[in-house]
């Protein structure tokens, strides 16, 4: 299963939902699908899910999405227990597990999932109930669609291949506004909240 295909499906269901993406290749398909204002790209690891958790608790009316890699989630797995404690119904955690630090350097350095670490089971052990591991695109689409309509929190681990790493690095195509990201996101969130009052 290719990560880009799964990300495109998530983007198609997103409906502008707040989203934070861990560092690496997962950012590009999301930005290419639609550069939404409620997006934080390339969050330093391991803060993608912690920041998304704060958003989910602070804005319970809105679905909030974290896009993690196996490396970034494993850098701070304790957050799974915090999520399990507070169980925000609106939090969707997607972990793309390719067994490697694929974006980094040669991309050949493995993560511990290549040696048997099971991220879904970490989530189960932390106390999460809505967890799945998916290995093919059809199964991924089914569970992701369910997660967008059912009560969370959800932890969905997608076992993906390494084919989305380009053979050669091209120019940086992400929106280059990390210095403005907080301002843009904050303004958009306040505007949306005000409009619904």
């Amino acid at each position: 299963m290719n990560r880009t295909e799964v990300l495109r499906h998530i983007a198609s269901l997103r409906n502008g939902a707040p989203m934070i993406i861990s560092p690496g290749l997962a950012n590009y398909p999301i930005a290419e699908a639609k550069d939404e204002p409620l997006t934080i790209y390339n969050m330093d690891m391991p803060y993608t899910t912690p920041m998304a958790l704060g958003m989910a608790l602070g804005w319970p009316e809105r679905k909030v999405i974290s896009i993690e890699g196996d490396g970034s989630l494993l850098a701070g797995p304790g957050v799974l227990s915090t999520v399990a404690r507070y169980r925000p119904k609106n939090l969707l955690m997607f972990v793309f597990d390719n067994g490697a630090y694929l974006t980094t350097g040669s991309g050949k350095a493995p993560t511990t999932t290549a040696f048997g670490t099971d991220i879904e089971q970490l989530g189960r052990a932390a106390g999460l109930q809505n967890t799945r591991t998916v290995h093919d695109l059809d199964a991924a689409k089914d569970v992701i669609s369910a997660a967008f309509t059912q009560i969370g929190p959800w932890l969905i681990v997608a076992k993906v291949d390494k084919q989305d790493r380009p053979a050669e690095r091209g120019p940086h195509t992400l929106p280059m506004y990390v210095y403005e990201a907080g301002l843009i996101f904050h303004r958009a969130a306040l505007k949306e909240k005000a409009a619904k009052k």
Partner: protein
Amino acid sequence: MSKQQKVKTPLRNVAGTGKAGVRHRQEALESFYDGFKVAGIDFAVFLPDSMLDGVEQLIIERGDIEAYQCSREDEGIAMAMGAFLVGKRPVALMEGSGIGMSALILARGIVQKTPTMLIIGHNSTLGERYDYHGATRLVAEPVLRALDIPYHVLFDPGDIRKVIVEAQATIEGQRLPFGILVPSHVIREIGESR
């Protein structure tokens, strides 16, 4: 009657701390809480810490500021920043050691203009007696200074409320994190055994 029971200053027994526990000045705890309310703080994240436990428990008891406990301090700061991004006015409370864990997320918050208030137990100079707090008192202020994060070390408990309110003005005006460090004497009964 024990020595502690003779003290006239209103004190708050911290539940479950037993003989080794501490007692906080109720007046100081109320000043923190009042400061938070006046500043509009509506979202608190903390990792339990002896120094700030009374404040944290008061927030939970009063119930009108959302309160969450994190697993690590840097995780908690990230949670607070996420809450800020969706319109909350957050505070993160922790021991000074937690700031040592949090340089990267604080830097990200500065770069991304996503602030939070930080209430930090312990400081570099006053009221520290134990060697096991050596790393705690060593790490917090240097991290704040290295990142040019504005901070204030409380000295007079009478300043607590005003410092919190003014700090929040700086946080919103400058979109920077702001640290408020809490030496022991500000919140605990002076002279009590620690």
